């Protein structure tokens, strides 16, 4: 499973944000996981435990996530919304000319940090 690889990529992003704000601890972070991102949340949680034990930055961190449904845009009738019946065709007009516009990626969203009161944000 590649959940640990994914979390390591997330960790690199967290590290960058923490450095930018001068934080030594991440309090929490939130992920948006696409329904078709091929991630098993339970395995992600296991991998997170491994990473927490290894990285002081994450020692007390909480990981939250939300599943984002696969979202289509129909290029024929303009329908934009979730897919239906596990079919990548437009649920309104049946057209096969659709684009997947959401639900395939993993997005790192809100990161909560404890930062010293007097820290100046480190730009760049």
């Amino acid at each position, binding site marked *: *499973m*590649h959940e640990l*690889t*994914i979390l390591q*990529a*997330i960790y690199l*992003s967290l590290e960058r*944000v923490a450095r930018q*704000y001068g934080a030594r601890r991440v*309090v929490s972070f939130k*992920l948006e996981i696409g329904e*078709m*991102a*091929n991630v098993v949340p339970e395995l992600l949680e296991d991998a997170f435990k491994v990473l927490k034990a290894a990285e002081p930055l994450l020692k007390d961190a909480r990981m939250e996530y939300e599943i984002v449904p696969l979202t289509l845009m129909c290029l024929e009738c303009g329908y934009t919304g979730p897919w239906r*019946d*596990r*079919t*990548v*065709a437009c649920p309104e007009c049946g057209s*096969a000319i659709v684009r*997947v516009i959401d639900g395939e*990626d*993993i*997005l*790192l*969203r*809100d*990161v*909560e*940090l*404890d*930062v*010293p*009161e*007097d820290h100046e944000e480190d730009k760049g």
Partner: protein
Amino acid sequence: MYRKTMKRIKVDVKREVLRANDMLAETLRREWKDRGILVVNLLSSPGSGKTALLERTVEALKDKYRVLVLEGDIDTERDAERIRAKGVEAVQITTGGTCHLEANMVMRAWEEVSGEDWDFLFIENVGNLICPAGFDLGEHLRVVLISVPEGDDKPAKYPKAFMTSRWLVLTKMDLLPYFDFSPEKVIEEARRLRPDLRVFRTSAKTGEGIDEWVEALEETLHALRETGLSAG
């Protein structure tokens, strides 16, 4: 015990996590296209017959074309040796436990052999229908395989592999009389996920369907070179 007082802040970073792989894959795809090399990524469950299909394929292509195979495996060299036994160059990529290939692994293997000219590059992904579907390797053509003994419910269970593949190969067709497997059901379900899916039915054992598959590969190579687009 804080030496400084702390405040808690929230930052919305909105950063996509798998982007690095996609960027690398795009770079590889452009290089291969510019050099006129058709790159095919084969996906399936373990044991569906990827290597067996490739053995037949390289045999059919090797007299006319320069063919290279990258073999993804968790830890053995066996599949690369099977291809070399056919007189075709193969590079083994052992992933060391990872259940899929990533663009950076393919790039490292490719760099060993990129000095030579090639017509076809086949990448056999690690046997797994879930994770490989999430990783673009820069291929022009993604092909998913299902073998007759596996059963016909694969598309519904692993939609992403079917949504992202342009071709489907039903393998081990010689076993059809012995299994409760409906090709029509698989094709119907797979086309709900991917309406333009092209389907082949093959047997590496009897050679059924191999000619049609090989011809389609040749046509796709020519389309890539002539129009810059891959047909199929």
